[in-house]
């Protein structure tokens, strides 16, 4: 199983790499200007967060848009990358009404393989100034917090997921299980592609 982490300049990019490595996945951190050609045979991709303000700095996301267009494998976007996904597919992103830092509770409102086996409410760790304002119609909301309705989103037809919070940090509850669920999604997809 090979899942790489695309570095968009986040404080926790290296944590995402570490969680994957600890679970036993073959992983590596790659810059976001890596040509898609070099990563086309992966089993999955995690897109890190970062400090860029996406509404006016989307160029800092390098080739991430191309990865979204071309990937046949599942993609999990964190924070900034989660917002980028929404914007890339026609939604909008802007400064959050209430930026969230640190501890926050989320409510899961819809079934998703990413949250399989997890409680409906739990504590997550946040760190964001922006948020998704309009979600494009290809996506649906999976989880919300009292101050941000788009804590988790998924594409309706493609294996593409976005999280506003950070399952890769130790303080986030069920973080490792979310990664394990993503790995399982990648495994099933790889099997389907081979069949």
């Amino acid at each position, binding site marked *: 199983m090979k899942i790489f982490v695309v570095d968009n*300049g986040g404080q926790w990019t290296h944590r995402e790499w570490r969680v994957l490595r*600890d679970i036993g996945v073959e992983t590596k951190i790659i810059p*976001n200007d890596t040509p898609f050609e070099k990563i086309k045979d992966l089993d999955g991709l995690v897109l890190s967060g970062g400090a860029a303000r996406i509404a006016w700095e989307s160029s800092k996301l390098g080739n991430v848009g191309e990865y979204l267009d071309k990937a046949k494998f599942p993609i999990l976007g964190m924070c900034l990358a989660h917002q980028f996904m929404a914007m890339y597919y026609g939604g909008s992103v802007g400064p959050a009404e209430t930026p969230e830092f*640190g501890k926050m509770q989320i409510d899961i409102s819809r079934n998703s393989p990413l949250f399989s086996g997890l409680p409906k409410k739990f504590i997550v760790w946040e760190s964001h100034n922006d948020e998704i304002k309009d979600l494009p119609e290809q996506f649906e909301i999976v989880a919300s917090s009292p101050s941000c309705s788009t804590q988790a989103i998924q594409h309706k037809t493609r294996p593409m997921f976005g999280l506003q919070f950070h399952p890769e940090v*130790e*303080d986030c509850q069920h973080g490792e299980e979310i990664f394990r669920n993503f790995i399982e999604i990648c495994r099933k997809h790889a099997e389907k592609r081979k069949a």
Partner: protein
Amino acid sequence: MFNVEKFVKEETDRLRKCLHGKAIIACSGGVDSTVAAALAKEAIGKNLVAVFVDTGFMRKGETESVKRMLEKIGLNLHFVKAEDEFFAALKDVTEPETKRKIIGEKFIRIFERIAESEKAKYLIQGTIAPDWIESGGGARDRIKSHHNVGGLPEEMELEIVEPLRDIYKDEVRKIAKYLNIEVHERQPFPGPGLAVRVVGELTRENVEIAREANAIMEEEMQKAFAENKVSKPWQYFAVLLPVKSVGVHGDVRNYGYMIALRSVESVDGMSASYSKIPHEVLDKISVRITNSLGKKVNRVVYDITNKPPGTIEFE
């Protein structure tokens, strides 16, 4: 999972291959640099020269205990007393990034002096992942310049080698335990020491207040662990705030500084939550600090901020 045995073997092999000749290692006595020293010693033996710099920002009794510990590991140790040099360089400096950069540069100039006399080409450091992550660079924003990464001067003669660059504190502790190094239980203490636990200007008097407050907090916390009143946090310390407030001491007005107590739970330092220390313990710490520091400090507060939004240390 992190494989300690494999890491130690691969890293010592790598060090053996990349170090040709003498190297110096910057030792603070903390778990990161001590583990890096042990790996380097295994790799190059007598070609390793350890340097400990007494910056004047060490905790109470620390210089002596670190010296003993490093000698016990069998390191060939250079002990540099540089207190006056550091205080002079930091006079009137209040901005935390400037403080950290001055400290980083001072360290390097001292290491260069020793490297020259020892004819060493390499500087080994106990840098761990959060140090370079938080120091920023490229697409990553700078949170703070860790003295050993973002605080390095642009021009320097030594080649830097960092065996622990890709791992975190909890993993370093596992290596320390595996190598039977006694520091594995020690709480983290930043390289700039008490210099970042005095917010704002560093005077000898302010550093002494922070040193005393840290010693009291550590002693009281250790008593509380022994009595099972609190479980051992990841890190706990006291910070001198450059804010004065009014107090009353023996019917007389007093205008003194404020001490902030900080204690956090974490695994790797990259996120943290504040410790729920019982009031009984906080009370003891507060009473002892205000009584023993007399007129200098008349107020103690407890920091209840998680990371994020706060960082663990104040500067």
